[in-house]
C-alpha cells in the first residue's frame, strides 16, 4: 500500500545487470583506491533516456521531501551529495575527495562525548550557474536543516554537531558534541554525547545534499518549502543535470538537460569524474502502475522504477527490455505490542516463549513463494542481508518448527481447549493482527499467517486500518504509535546503518506524551538491547561496531519484539540500451549514479 509518502525499497541488481566487474571489498579506503566494486563502463555521448515511476512527484525539495519519487530525481540527477553508496553499501565520494573515516584520519574521537569529522570537498566544484560550490554551502545547508522552520526531512545526526568550522573553501570540520540544553537542531531532550557513529549513512548522503547559499540566503527558512527553487525551478544544481522543465503531480514530468559545470573539480576522480553523457534525461510519472507497465511495453520509457513482485508476470517478455528483481533494505515484518492495549497488557507482554512459538509457526517459504513470487528472502534475523558489513551471516537460519512451537507453548502453560484454542490462566491465545487496508497482498499474508498460527492453537482475527491512520504519529492518534494494536504488519525501508534498527527497540524511544516522536512502536524494553544499541551508536570503529551489532542481532532474535518475515524485493525493468543502470541498496533509489547513465544508441 502506498500512502503517497514513504521511502521505498532499494535493490541490488542481479549479476546479469550489475556493473561490478568484481564483487567484494578490496581493503581499507585510501586516497588512491576506493572500497567499492562499482565500476561503470565508459558511456556513449548523446541521446536521451526516459525513466519512470507511478507515484506522484510533488516538488523538488531535496531536503524536505520524504517522497521516494522526489528523491529519484533530486538525489543523483539534480543534486550531488557529499558521498553516495555503491550496490554493496560502501560509501563512495561524490562532492568530497575522500569519505571521512578513522582509517584516513578524517574521523577523530576526541573523548567519550566528542568527535571531529573533517569534510574535504573536491577543489574547483561549481554549481550549474557557474558559482563555486564550497564549504560555505555545506555549513549553510546544515544551518537550514537544523532550523525546524525549514521542515527538513531528517535532523538525525545533525543534532549531534555542536559547531561547524570552515577552515577553507574546501575543508570543513564538524565538531560533534553533547547538548545539555536539549534545544539544538530540533532535539526534544538533552544530548549526553555527541558521538554519532552512523554519520556516514545518516548525514551527507542522498536527500541531504548541499544547497546553494548564493540562491537561498535571502529566503527565510520557513519560506523554503514554497520557494520556486524547490517547487518548480532549481536555478542552481550540483548534480549532472539541471531542470529545463518541471510539471508536478501524478502525471509529473521533469525534463533535465546536462549541467554544463558538473565536471568542474571532478577531473581525475575515480568515480563521477566526467560530464554527463545524455543530451536529455526525462523523468516521467504515470499516475498508476498499470499505465506505467503499459508505457514500458509500448517503449515509452527506458527504465521503470517502483515495481514489485506482483508486477513480474506483466513485465515478462517485453521485447528489448530486461527485468531484474533484487532485495535491499526493505523488509516485511510483524511488530508485537509488548506494552498495553485497551488498558491491559497484551498476551505478548512478558512472554518470550509465546513470542518464540509464534515465530516458529510461521511458514515464511510459502509466503515468499505464493505471495512474492519466490523472489523475496525469508529472514533469519532482524537485519537484512544488504546491511553489510553488519549483517551476521552466521546467524542460525530460520526454520519452521510447529512441533517445537507446540512444546514451547505447552511448557509455558498454554493449554489447548476443546475448541482447539489454547489458553493460560483464563486468557485465550488470541490476538488481532493489523495492517494497512486495501492491500491485497497484505490481506493474503494475514490469511497465511492466521492459518499457520491456527496449527499451534492460536485464534487470530484481523482489523486493518487506512494507511494514514495506521502510520499516523502519536499526537495524531496513529494506531502503531499509540499502541492501539496487538500485532502490526508492515514494511520498512531502513537506512543503511544498524542504528536505525536500534531506534525501534530502545526503551527510551517508546512514544509517550513526553516523547511523542519515539519510534519504538513495539514498546520493547530489554536492558541488554538498550546497552548494546547505545554501545553501537557510540563506537566509531567499524570493525568494533560489527561485533557489537552481531550481539544486537542475537539478543533481538531471542527477545523478539519483532518477527521478520522476508526481505521485500524491488523490481526494475529497463531497456537493453540503458547503459550503466545499477540499483543501490540505500537511500539512493537507483538514481545516484545518473551521471554515468547513457543511451547505448547515443544520438539517434
Amino acid at each position, binding site marked *: 500500500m502506498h500512502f503517497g*509518502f514513504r521511502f521505498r525499497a532499494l535493490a541490488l541488481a542481479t549479476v546479469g545487470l550489475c556493473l561490478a566487474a568484481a564483487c567484494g571489498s578490496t581493503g581499507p579506503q585510501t586516497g588512491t583506491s576506493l572500497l567499492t566494486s562499482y565500476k561503470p563502463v565508459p558511456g556513449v555521448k548523446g541521446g536521451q533516456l526516459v525513466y519512470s515511476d507511478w507515484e506522484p512527484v510533488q*516538488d523538488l525539495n531535496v531536503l524536505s521531501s520524504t517522497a521516494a519519487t522526489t528523491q529519484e530525481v533530486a538525489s543523483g540527477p539534480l543534486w550531488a551529495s557529499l558521498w553516495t553508496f555503491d550496490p554493496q553499501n560502501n560509501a563512495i565520494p561524490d562532492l568530497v575527495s575522500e569519505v571521512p573515516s578513522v582509517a584516513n584520519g578524517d574521523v577523530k574521537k576526541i573523548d567519550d562525548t566528542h568527535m571531529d569529522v573533517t569534510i574535504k570537498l573536491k577543489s574547483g566544484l561549481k554549481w550549474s550557474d557557474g558559482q563555486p560550490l564550497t564549504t560555505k554551502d555545506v555549513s549553510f545547508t546544515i544551518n537550514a536543516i537544523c532550523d*525546524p522552520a525549514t521542515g527538513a*526531512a531528517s535532523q538525525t545526526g545533525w543534532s549531534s554537531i555542536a559547531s561547524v568550522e570552515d577552515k577553507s573553501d574546501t575543508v570543513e570540520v564538524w565538531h560533534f558534541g553533547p547538548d545539555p540544553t536539549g534545544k539544538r537542531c*530540533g532535539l526534544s531532550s538533552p544530548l549526553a554525547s555527541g558521538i554519532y557513529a552512523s554519520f556516514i549513512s545518516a548525514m551527507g548522503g542522498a536527500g541531504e545534499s548541499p544547497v546553494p547559499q548564493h540562491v537561498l540566503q535571502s529566503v527565510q527558512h520557513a519560506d523554503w518549502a514554497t520557494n520556486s527553487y524547490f517547487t518548480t525551478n532549481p536555478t542552481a544544481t550540483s548534480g549532472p543535470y539541471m531542470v529545463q522543465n518541471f*510539471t508536478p503531480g501524478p*502525471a509529473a514530468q521533469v525534463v533535465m538537460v546536462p549541467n554544463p559545470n558538473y565536471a568542474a573539480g571532478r577531473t581525475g576522480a575515480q568515480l563521477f569524474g566526467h560530464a554527463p553523457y545524455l543530451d536529455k534525461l526525462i523523468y516521467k510519472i504515470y*499516475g498508476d502502475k498499470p499505465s506505467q507497465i503499459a508505457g514500458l511495453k*509500448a517503449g515509452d520509457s527506458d527504465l521503470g522504477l517502483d515495481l514489485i513482485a506482483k508486477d513480474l508476470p506483466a513485465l515478462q517478455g517485453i521485447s528489448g527490455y530486461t527485468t531484474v528483481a533484487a532485495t535491499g533494505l526493505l523488509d516485511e515484518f510483524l511488530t508485537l505490542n509488548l506494552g498495553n492495549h485497551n488498558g491491559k497488557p497484551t498476551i505478548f507482554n512478558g512472554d518470550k516463549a509465546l513470542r518464540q512459538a509464534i515465530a516458529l509457526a510461521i511458514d515464511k517459504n510459502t509466503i515468499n513463494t505464493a505471495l512474492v513470487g519466490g523472489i523475496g528472502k525469508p529472514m533469519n534475523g532482524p537485519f537484512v542481508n544488504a546491511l553489510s558489513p553488519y549483517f551476521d551471516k552466521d546467524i542460525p537460519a530460520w526454520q519452521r518448527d510447529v512441533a517445537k512451537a507446540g512444546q514451547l507453548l505447552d511448557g509455558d502453560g498454554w493449554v489447548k481447549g476443546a475448541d482447539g484454542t489454547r489458553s493460560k490462566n483464563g486468557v485465550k491465545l488470541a490476538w488481532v493482527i493489523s495492517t494497512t487496508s486495501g492491500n491485497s497482498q497484505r490481506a493474503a499474508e494475514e490469511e497465511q499467517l492466521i492459518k499457520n498460527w491456527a496449527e499451534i492453537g492460536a485464534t487470530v482475527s484481523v482489523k486493518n486500518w487506512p494507511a494514514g491512520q495506521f502510520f499516523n*504519529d502519536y499526537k495524531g492518534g496513529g494506531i502503531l504509535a499509540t499502541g492501539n494494536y496487538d500485532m502490526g504488519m508492515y514494511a520498512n525501508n531502513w537506512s543503511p546503518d544498524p542504528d536505525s534498527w536500534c531506534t525501534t527497540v530502545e526503551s527510551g524511544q517508546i512514544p509517550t506524551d513526553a516523547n511523542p516522536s519515539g519510534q519504538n512502536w513495539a514498546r520493547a524494553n530489554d536492558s541488554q538491547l538498550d546497552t548494546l544499541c547505545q554501545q553501537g551508536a557510540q563506537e566509531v570503529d567499524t570493525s568494533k561496531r560489527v561485533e557489537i551489532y552481531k550481539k544486537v542481532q542475537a539478543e533481538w532474535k531471542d527477545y523478539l519484539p519483532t518477527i521478520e518475515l522476508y526481505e521485500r524485493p524491488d523490481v526494475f525493468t529497463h531497456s537493453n540500451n540503458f547503459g550503466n543502470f545499477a540499483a543501490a541498496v540505500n537511500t539512493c533509489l537507483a538514481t545516484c549514479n545518473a551521471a554515468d547513465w547513457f543511451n547505448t544508441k547515443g544520438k539517434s
Partner: protein
Amino acid sequence: MIGYAARRLIQTIPTIFVMSIILFGIMQAIPGGPMAALAFNSHQSYAAKLAIIHRWGLDLPVYLQYFRWIGAMFTGDWQNSFFLNQPVNKVILARLPATLLLMTVGYLLTELLAIPAGILAALKRYSFFDQFVTFFAYVGNSMPTFWLGLMLLMVFGVFLQILPSSGVIDIRVTGAPFLTPEYNTWFSQNPVTGVLDVAKHIILPATTLAIVGVAADSRFVRASMLDAIHQDFVRTARAKGVPERTVILKHTLRNALLPVITNIALELPILFSGAVVTERIFTWPGMGQLFFQALEGYDYPLMMGILFVAGLLVIFFNVLADFAYAIADPRISYA
C-alpha cells in the same frame, strides 16, 4: 425576468456558504490526515514536524481553519497545496487546459453522436436502429468507466500498440511537457505534428468518455423526442400540411431539445472538474487526476479548492440552465 435573475443570484450566496461548510466538514471527518505523511519519518525531529503542521495551519482550532480558508478563497489567496507547496489557484489553472481539452472533445463527441442517435431512434421507433441504440445504451450504462478505459488501453495501447497508453503528448517527440513555454515554441514550429500528437493521445480517453456519455444522453434525447412528437401541436402541424421535415426539425426538435439544453447546462461543470477515473487511467494531467492525488494525500487546501470550484460551477450552471430554459421556452413566465 430581471427581477427573477436578481433573486436567483442572491439565492446562490447562502447556497455557496452552506456548500462550503458541508465540504469543510466532510474533509475534517475523513479518518487520517496529512500528518500521516510526516508520521512515518523517524529521522525528522518533532520540532520540524510541528513547524510543518504550523505552516499548514493545522494547529489552529477547526472553526478558525474554516474561517481562514473561506476568507482566503474570497480574497483570491487560495493558500498553498500542502505537498505541491504552490498556490492552489495556480495549480488548478495549470491543470485546467488539459481537462478542458479532454472534456470538450469528449463532450462534443458525446453530443454529436447522442443527439442525432436519440432523434433517429425516436423517429424510427422499434426499428433495428432504435434497438441497436437501446442495446448500446444498456451496455454503455452498465460498463464501469474504469473497466472500459482499461480495456481500451489494453487493446489499443498494449496489445495492438497503435495508440499511446498515457499522457497528452509524447515527450520524446516534443521535448517538453504540455503547454510549457518550450512546448509552445516547439508547437509553433511543428503545428501539424503537435496537433496529430495530441489527437493520437486524446482518442482513447475521449472515446471512453463518449461511450458512457452517448449511452446516457441518447436515451434522454430519445425520450424527450418521443414525448414531444406525440404532442397536440405536432398533430396540428401535420394536419395543416406542414412538410414532415419542417414538423420534425422546426416544431418537434425545438421542444424536444428544451430539457436537453437544461441537461447540457447541468453537465457543463464537468468540463472543468474533469473525469477522475478516466484521467487516472490514461494519466491525463487534468483536474480529475489532481483531485485524486489530493484525496490520497489529504491535501486539504487542494481538495477544498477543487471541490469549491466544482461546487461554484454547479451552482452557476444551474442558474444558467434556469435562464436558458426561460429564454428558450417563451411559455415560462417568471413574474
